[in-house]
């Protein structure tokens, strides 16, 4: 079977040849490195976005409007991007969901970031990022989006800044004028502290198919301030017929999983996790001797510290991105021994397996091709 060559490939190839020739003028760099001097958005060797607007949603959440550079690919509502931000001279990468719909016509997109206590990067974005700053970004990725064709009736269950993917989806469906009957249960601490609160309430009033139920966790009575099945039955009696898209803290997602599991409807529950949800570490978890084969280095590691950290503490500098098991930048071949995936608690012990070192810890001795 031959794959059909997509149209528009020919000019691409011609462009690639031209850029290969122009790169000869810039050797050992690329032309793009010099183009960057004029406008960082024109580069092709890495992608930048320029901050064009900042808007405070609540006292500790901010929406940042970004203008992406060349080679940007439109996102699907619900997808996230990696953002690199230097803090104290050090480069960190975090993942944020795009909160704007892809239908925006100015070529920009927004991320909405809530300042986490003790979170270095979120603090920097919410407090220090200025209009005109350039930040490195990655392409949109992620599996959490609405299917294109099938007419689903969505139920969104979101909490706090978990609103962002749902917001992108709802905005997109409205922009396309094909919003199906939608129920949205959103948890936020207070009425005034709700990200996108005013927009959500306005949609609830103006959009006949959109039904919002806000739960204010600091105001509601104790039995009503968190997710329960009784609450779900009351707010959305037909939840069993709906496709649920949920995003929020691990405790909420775990409760949802239990409920949908008990109803035998796990395939109808779609979950986006913010932080890698680590499985509890068993008391008998043992570390071991970690061998970084390519660097010819042996170090001792415990059963809890992720191997990326172990490698960095040993003076290595492996490639990495999100540090939470999402982006696969840190993928490394396990050549021997056993490691444990900190998210699931599963052991990986096949030689040749690809492991994400940022979310794996040693489980006994192991050897990595690092």
């Amino acid at each position, binding site marked *: 079977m031959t794959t059909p060559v997509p149209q528009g490939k020919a000019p691409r190839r011609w462009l690639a040849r031209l850029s290969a020739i122009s790169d*000869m*003028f*810039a*050797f*050992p*760099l690329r032309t793009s*490195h*010099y183009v960057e*001097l004029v406008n960082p958005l024109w580069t092709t060797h*890495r992608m930048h976005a320029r901050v064009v607007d900042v808007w405070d949603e609540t006292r500790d959440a901010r929406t940042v409007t970004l203008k992406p550079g060349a080679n940007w690919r439109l996102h699907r509502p619900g997808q996230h991007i990696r953002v*690199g931000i*230097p803090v*104290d*001279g*050090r*480069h*960190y990468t975090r993942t944020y969901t795009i909160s704007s719909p892809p239908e925006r016509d100015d070529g920009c997109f927004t991320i909405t970031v809530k300042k986490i206590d003790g979170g270095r990067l979120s603090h920097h974005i919410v407090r220090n990022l200025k209009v005109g700053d350039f930040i*490195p970004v990655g392409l949109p990725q992620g599996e959490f989006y609405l299917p294109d064709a099938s007419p689903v009736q969505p139920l969104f269950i979101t909490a706090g800044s978990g609103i962002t993917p749902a917001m992108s989806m709802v905005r997109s469906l409205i922009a396309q004028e094909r919003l199906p009957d939608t129920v949205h249960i959103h948890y936020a601490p207070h009425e005034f502290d709700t990200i996108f609160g005013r927009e959500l309430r306005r949609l609830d009033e103006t959009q006949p198919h959109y039904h919002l139920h806000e739960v204010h966790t600091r105001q509601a009575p104790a039995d009503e301030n968190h997710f329960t099945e009784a609450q779900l039955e009351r707010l959305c009696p037909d939840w069993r017929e709906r496709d649920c898209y949920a995003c929020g803290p691990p405790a909420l997602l775990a409760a949802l999983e239990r409920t949908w599991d008990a109803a035998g409807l796990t395939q109808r529950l779609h979950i986006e996790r913010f932080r890698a949800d680590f499985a509890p570490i068993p008391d008998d978890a043992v570390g071991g001797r970690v061998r970084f084969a390519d660097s010819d280095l042996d170090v001792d590691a415990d059963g809890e510290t992720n191997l990326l950290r172990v490698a960095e503490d040993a003076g290595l*500098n492996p*490639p990495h991105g999100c540090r939470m098991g999402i982006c696969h930048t840190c993928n490394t071949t396990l050549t021997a021994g056993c490691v444990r995936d900190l998210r699931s608690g599963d052991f990986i012990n096949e030689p040749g397996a690809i492991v994400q070192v940022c979310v794996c810890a040693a489980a006994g001795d192991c050897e990595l091709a690092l």
Partner: protein
Amino acid sequence: MSTKRPLPVDLTDEQIDEFGREMDAIYYETLESRGEKDRLYILRLIRTQRSMALLGRLVIYASLFLLPAWGHALAGWPSTLIVMALGVILLGLAKILENMEIAHNVLHAQWDWMKDPEIQSNTWEWDTMSPSDRWMHSHNVVHHTWTNVLEKDLDVGYGIMRVTPHQPWKPAYLLQPVYFVLLMLLFEEGVALHEQALIDVAERKKKPKEILPLMKHIGRKVWGQVRKDYIMWPGLAALVALPISLVVPESPLIVFLLVAGANFVANIMRNIWAFVIIFCGHFPAGVYHFTQEQTEGESRGQWYLRQLLGSANITGGPLFHVMSGNLSHQIEHHLFPDLCSNRYPEVAPRVKALADRYGLPYNSAPLWRQFGTTWLNNLRLSLPGGTTPPEPARA
């Protein structure tokens, strides 16, 4: 143990250990304080350097519009050459900055702590014929570990010169003043071919076939450099000159040769400057050399001591330090090779004070003195004999 020749100092082992601990303290304290300011320094420097390189090349192009054949009021050889010289200087300075203050230090992993994916020692490729990874081996591993140890450090005389009386004399050294000048002019090529493997082939320890992959690897990098400076940039100028030559009587070949020549001069400029600074690092008068047995079972303190005694600083202003890639702080660079270079000026007084306190020499002098004694040493040691620095070393 008793038969081992000690380092040329009159310090007890305990004092040397203490010296090492104090050095460590300076090192870790400075590492801790790295931050946003250092990041801005390297980013601005890279921006400046790339702008200078581009501007230099464009000024060289611009000078072609002043060729006598244009016939306008400003046209003429003097104005062409003056503007071209300006472009050459800009390009040469850009190459110097790239090689010395940026690439040399990035390849020392001085900026890896930022975790900036663009500025990493394992991915940086520099604007010279030597491939980064090869140079990192011969420099970071061999030279920085075995600094000034005879028969271990390839940089001691680079295999062709006698830089210390410890090296036995042979007649070939009579010609070393000639090698000195040749290496100065062809430093870029010299660094690219600075490989133990080549010596092994010359001594018939390896077959030429064995080093073929290595030579191909180096060859690809050399070709990239040659293609850029001597084909692409002059070629583009000649290509544009071709249709213009129908109107303006100027041969495209002359244009090609002028641009290629300008690039050549910029490269030579970089070669000479890099050679002068680098030779002042380990070969002026008063620098110590060591034998392999002296380094056996070396402690951290002894290693620091050897770096201090085996290196020499050059005094000068801030601009001079940047242009020399802070190799004018060769002592600090050898003590703390992975500390980011913009911090060397600030640790230098502390290192000097420490050396003074232990009565150790701290070899620091202006460029003319350091390079002058390097040159005199070279002449003197081309003949048998020669004098070694006083032992034990005292300030």
